[in-house]
């Protein structure tokens, strides 16, 4: 594979997601990172493995998004002490992923600036690494709460506001530390990891169907994206092709998930800006939409609809007609609501120039997904690296460059309409029913990767199977990339605007706490 002027030998991986794999050494790890950065590639995920039981040592893996393919580089590490070169200097988003990897596996990034614990708050001691294969899953330690060393800002009139982990509304737990002067935010530091519940360890040894259910619950609001990415990884590992119709039905579920979340978010954005009307209207649309999901997929959120090898059900022709009509109706309603909100001077005043992430900052920090597209990062897997059926239905990339709350709302509006059109096109081209073929048996050690553009951004699942059971799964949420950018988006804004700005990103806590 040629990355700019950097040439590297890679092996093409099977599966729907175009992916290449290579093995690098210590120096190659860094050279590759620089080549990817220079070629405008982006960091997707970093994870670690413990292969000592397979006669190897530890290893780190990195996945880069490049225009041609996903590139996975593997760096084998010596058993003790397992160290590897820091990537955060090249890709700032690597920082928390590396810290999490240290907490879970004890792999240490050499030269990293920040060595504070990230996922470990004291539920297990610093010298115990739960994700090592030698550590039993049910190891129980007494929780010894640790004080997180926040960076403090000093100066006359500066004071701190700690918020969380339990927040005022019905949202997920996390801690935010604001340093403010008057009402202006000088610094925000996030501390997450409160929801860490050992998901990656839990995957070890599970049968494929159980692992699929777990994968679908990494972040409930993106259950279809995770379910599909996991299924894609299994199918890649087993070199199995799903029936066309199953791919189409998966895409219908994914686009419906996107619409459902965007509808919900637009309501909350309006509400947080003081317009309860928006919440009532959008939550009404969302509820109708979820009720149809129940009829279509047997579940309001379409949880467990995507299964490795296919989908869990099919649609009646009547349902298909209803879905078309509904898509048309919702488009009319959403466009009408958009015109109302666009004309609302008071609302626009709150949304514009609020929580700005400039395109330059977005690129530098690696902002991704929906929030990235609102800040000029014109990237969408469905458009640039489409898997079936997206290669056949021509999705359009939606984007903006203002990078403020208004832009993130505008991209949501555009994407709802685009998804509704995609739903029509998917129904127009829906392949006929076919007998599904069972997944083949898996012998030996297999690797597979799945990659899906969820509503929030790129969801990746890297999977290793051992004699048919799960050996290791690393699920990656785009929130890893975007949480640190939120710390910048709030700078210079006033504290009361934080809920609004936070909502406009709507990042997952569960998806990164794992």
């Amino acid at each position, binding site marked *: 594979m040629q990355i700019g002027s950097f040439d590297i030998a890679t092996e093409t991986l099977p599966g729907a997601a175009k992916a290449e794999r290579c093995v690098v050494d210590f120096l190659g790890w860094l050279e590759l990172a620089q080549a990817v950065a220079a070629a405008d590639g982006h960091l997707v995920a970093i994870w670690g493995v413990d292969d000592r039981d397979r006669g190897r040592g530890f290893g780190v893996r990195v996945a880069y998004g490049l225009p041609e393919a996903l590139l996975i580089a593997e760096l084998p590490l010596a058993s003790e002490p397992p160290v590897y070169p820091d990537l955060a200097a090249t890709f700032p988003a690597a920082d928390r992923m590396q810290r999490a990897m240290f907490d879970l596996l004890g792999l240490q990034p050499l030269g990293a600036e920040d060595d504070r614990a990230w996922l470990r708050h004291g539920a297990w001691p610093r010298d115990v690494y739960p994700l090592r294969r030698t550590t039993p899953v049910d190891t129980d330690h007494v929780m010894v709460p640790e004080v997180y060393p926040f960076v403090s800002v000093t100066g006359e009139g500066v004071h701190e506001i700690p918020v969380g982990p339990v927040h005022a509304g019905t949202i997920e*737990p996390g801690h935010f530390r604001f340093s403010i002067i008057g009402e202006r935010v000088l610094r925000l530091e996030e501390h997450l990891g409160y929801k860490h*519940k050992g998901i990656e360890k839990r995957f070890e040894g599970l049968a494929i169907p159980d692992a699929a259910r777990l994968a679908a619950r990494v972040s409930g609001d993106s259950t279809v994206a995770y379910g599909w990415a996991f299924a894609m990884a299994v199918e890649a590992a087993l070199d199995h092709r799903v029936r066309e119709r199953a791919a189409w039905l998966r895409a219908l579920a994914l686009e419906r998930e996107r619409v459902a979340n965007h509808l919900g978010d637009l309501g909350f954005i309006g509400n947080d800006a003081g317009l309860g009307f928006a919440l009532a*209207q959008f939550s009404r649309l969302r509820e109708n939409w979820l009720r149809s999901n129940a009829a279509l997929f047997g579940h309001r959120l379409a949880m467990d609809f995507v299964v490795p090898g296919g989908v869990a059900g099919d649609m009646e022709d009547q349902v298909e007609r209803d879905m078309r009509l509904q898509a048309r109706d919702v488009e009319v309603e959403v466009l009408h609501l958009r015109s109302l909100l666009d004309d609302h001077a008071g609302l626009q005043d709150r949304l514009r120039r609020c929580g700005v992430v400039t395109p330059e900052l977005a690129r530098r920090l690696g902002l991704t997904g929906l929030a990235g597209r609102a800040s000029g990062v014109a990237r969408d897997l469905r458009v640039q690296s489409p898997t079936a059926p997206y290669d056949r239905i021509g999705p359009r990339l939606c984007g903006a460059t203002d990078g403020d709350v208004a832009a993130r709302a505008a991209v949501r509006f555009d994407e709802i309409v685009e998804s509704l059109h995609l739903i029509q096109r998917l129904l127009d081209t829906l392949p006929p029913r076919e007998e599904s073929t069972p997944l083949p048996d898996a012998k030996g050690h297999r690797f597979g990767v799945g990659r899906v553009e969820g509503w929030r951004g790129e969801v990746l699942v890297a999977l290793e199977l051992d004699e048919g059971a799960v050996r290791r799964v690393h699920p990656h949420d785009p929130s890893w990339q975007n949480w640190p950018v939120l710390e910048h988006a709030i700078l210079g804004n006033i504290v009361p605007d934080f809920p609004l700005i936070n909502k406009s990103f709507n990042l997952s806590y569960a998806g990164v706490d794992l």
Partner: protein
Amino acid sequence: MIRILRQVARAGLVTEAPPDPDEALRGVREQLEKEVLRSFAGALAIRHVDAGSCNGCELEIHACSNPYYNLEGLGIRFVASPRHADLLLVTGPVSKHMEEALRRTYDATPDPKLVVAIGDCGCTGGVFGENYASRGRVSNVIPVDVAVPGCPPTPHAIMQGILTAITRAP
């Protein structure tokens, strides 16, 4: 403003949803309202605590406030502080990192207090179970009055769970 009012009128009142499949829901709404009036002088305050969910349960708790279910219309409010709460709605398996926060929230809630555990995770630990980082079901950490199964439970089931809890109240 006029256009907004027109849209409000056009969307109309959806709270009285069509008979099928909402007949059951109507029953729950009416009973809920009666119980809120009877036992809580018309105002039931709920504090939600996410103790480690996948966030799916939160989506359905949110849905309880949409115009179809209109929980607030029954005198049930979500409050920001446990000190103002009659009832805790707890989601997720309890992660070890949230255990203390959950206990503190429980302790800060004035007696008599009710706890409703939401979702398969709250009931049993769900797909996550117990491990080095998870304490599993909510009742492993604080006393639970009613546990609502489902993954996630529907808004209807959540409302039913709340109703079941308050009809048990003294």
